[in-house]
């Protein structure tokens, strides 16, 4: 299991949350947690509370906004949505991530003598 406390994970989690909000539109913390759980095929187990730390970080940077609303099963919940700055950031980060994972991939595929 991934170490939830590492800085790398924080950044990754922020990226996942941002992407989730971009794709699914306004969503509450519970919904975000579900989506990440679902997408990661249970590989990534996280304390769902940490999602809120991520949301706070993103909100402080101005990349997401929030407003109170009512959930599908009638509970009061705060809905988060991505801002324009957030979309730009996401595009940047996604690019970085792809470049980075590409490099890692190449390195990992290296073979002796190759």
């Amino acid at each position: 299991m991934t170490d939830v406390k590492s800085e790398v994970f924080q950044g990754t989690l922020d990226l996942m949350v941002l992407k989730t909000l971009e794709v699914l539109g306004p969503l509450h913390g519970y919904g975000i947690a579900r989506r990440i759980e679902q997408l990661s095929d249970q590989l990534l187990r996280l304390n769902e509370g940490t999602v809120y730390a991520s949301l706070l970080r993103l909100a402080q940077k101005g990349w997401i906004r929030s407003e109170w609303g009512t959930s599908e099963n009638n509970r009061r919940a705060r809905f988060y949505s991505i801002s324009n700055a957030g979309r730009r950031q996401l595009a940047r980060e996604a690019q970085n991530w792809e470049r980075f994972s590409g490099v890692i991939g190449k390195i990992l595929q290296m073979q002796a003598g190759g």
Partner: protein
Amino acid sequence: MLTAMRVFASRLLGSFRRQHFDAGSEEEFQSHLHMLADRFVSQGMTKAEALRAAKQQFGGVAQIEEELRDRSSLALLEALWQDLSYGLRVLRKSPGFAAIAVLTLALGIGANTALFSVVNGVLLNPLPYPHPDKLVTVTSFEPQYGEGSISYPDLQDWVRDNRTLSSLAGYRSFQSFNLIGQTDAQRFSAVNVSASFFPTLGVTPVLGRNFSPAEDQLNAPPAVILSGGFWKTKFGSSPDIVGKTLNLDGKDYTVVGVLPQNFYFCCINFQLGDLYVPLGAAQQPWMRDRKVHTGIYAVGRIKDGVTLAQARSDMDRVARNLAATYPEADKGVGAAVTPVKEEMVKDIQPFLLVLLAAVGFVLLIACVNVANLLLARSTGRAREFAIRAALGASQGRVVRQLLTESVLLSLVGGGLGLLLAFWGTTAGLSILPSTLPRANDVGIDSHVLLFTLIISLLAGALFGLAPALKTSHPDLHETLKEGGRGGSGVRYRTQNIFVIVEMALAVVLLVGAGLTIRTLMHLWSVNPGLDPHNVLGFEVGFPPVPPNTSANALRARVRQLTDKIASVPGLTAVSVDNWRLPMTGADDLPFTIEGQPKPADENSSPDAIWYIAGPGYLNVMKIPLLRGRFLGPQDDANSPGVCVIDEDFARKYFGNQDPIGKRIDPTLTIKEPLEIVGIVGHVKQFGLDESGINASYPQFYTSNFQLPDDILTASESSAGYVVRTQGPPDAFTGAIRGAVHAFNSKAVFYEPETMDSVISDSLASRRFAMILLAIFAGLALVLASIGIYGVISYIAGQRTHEIGIRIALGAQRRDILKIVLGHGTRLALIGVAVGLAASAGLTRLMSKILFGVSSLDPLTFICVAVVLTLVALAACYVPARRAMKVDPMVALRYE
């Protein structure tokens, strides 16, 4: 950057308006938990199971909340506030501890602030002139003698030929005038200055104008600029003074301007005057002689865009050209260019830097002491921190709390220290007047405040960090189990090291103070070559005489006045002394020796310090007569010229020959050869600490009554006298003043000065350093003994239990005393050893301010070691006795 600012702003906002920006609120969490639980219920769990599972999957609500709180507000600011109020509460609960810590720090920080305010005023602050960094002094420079005064023709050529100075102005202090009033006369000090002097400094008269170049010429109509103080006391600040005339030495001077009250300049041989008159108008014939250097110095301003090095090489070029043009006068005479600020402080700088280092050590000791106190206290608080850690406080948080408390202490200490510093410098500067150049610039300004704040914070961090780190690593388990008794050897080790460090620091300071004290003691025991006790020097200013008064009439006047003064009861000897008191200022006269080959040019001719004296001089000064006779009353204008030389003169110029009967020819000034009639002892003209070439600089004496007519006439307006008194000389000034007045009601008695004060003034900056170093060392001694006392009592207290067991098992009380005392002694001895080693390295840095004492003076080192060890033993004795008296029953039951 922008993002960072936004984060900061939102955090700032968050710390004030929490509810508006509260991602992850309680309600939000609850809602999340319920949704999660609903899901588990729909998967078949019971409600209770579902809730438990939801909580597990969510993670600790409290922890998340804590984390979010840290984030959502300015965590630091808020925690700081929390820590502060908590710290204040803690400190209030132990007022004794807080008071001792704050006081210790106040002493340390106060001493540093006080000294820094001096260093700041004297060394760091810019001078009070526009673009002060462009101001330089320009002096003549001869490799053999160093910096010296300039001849007036040279100065004029320097002004004309240089290309790097926007202006260059000469000055000549220590002049004076009789101001003739309606009924009486008064004496006022004056300075000759070039017309460009005040413009060079950037000083504008508050009234009237500066001198014009036309006034700065020989035979120009006499003009005078008044100092602000003179204008105020003499003329009540009358605004219509400009254009009026003053009768100075019988000549009418027109007042052209008044200087600002706060005008201040202090540089080589510049002394503020009551009056300023143009230098170029000075009548003396030697003013036109390129070979005569009598007291003229110069200050200049470097042109914009020109560096100091360029100015120096430019002045070098000018001086070399002059040496080529006038080899007989200027060969070997260079021009030295020095920034004014450097020139002003160069004598005091080494003292201040040593003092600054010393006072830094005092603060270090204070910090170590407080760190020790904190450490001792933190043992008591170990349980508190263990509990907090167990409840989830991070290590960083605990360190922060402890640091906040220590910084709180140091800030309060710093505030108090600022007050101490303010009082200390005010009192100190009034006790030690005129020792310090720029003493007026010393005060508490924003730099000093900033300095105090920074050292307070640094000190707080310094003494807080060690205990904080120590305490924040507790072995939770052990501490809680042990019931707070603490007492691991490691903690003692830190305290032991602290004690050793402060002992060592105290040793260094005591050694430094000891060395300066030894230097002064040594200097006081140096024989100046004369007996300075009960000697009074003073000057008498005469009213103007008719223009064609004969030189013999002037000689008769001096002789009559000598007799008149001698009639004052209680004076055992009186002599005229046309120059200033010995050891205050000197004139140097070149001469040739008859029968010895003539030197190639003036500059390589022998020279010596020239004293003008009357027959009674030797009895006044009690200079030993070694051979022959001294100047007598029979040596007058009608008898052959004679002189008396000192032992160094004899040794240097005559070696094994007998100088008596030989003749020297001071060609320049005295136009006839003088026969040597006696040899006297050497006077330490350059101060008790004279050394190097100055230590054996030859001296000779001629009679005032054999001075050539032209010299006598040129200096007829005043005469110097020295008298030996029975008892304190100050008691005689009234009677002497009366005698002078009785002699001539318009004669002025002025500038009385005792020879003792001349000598004591010459040691003033050393005494200043000694007093402060002694204060700092005393402070260090007290702090260090408090430190060792505190640690030994603390450790003994912690060991009460152990001691109780030992006693119960049959240990003798004496053994207990030995254990505790032995511990203290061991620490003290190690500290002393480390300190001595450090001193051996550090005192070399202060060799500049030592004299006659090696920086490794064994006596000082041994005394300091003994004193400090004894003091440490005494400090340990109290807790040792207390430990000895431990009642085993009480000690054992106590746990």
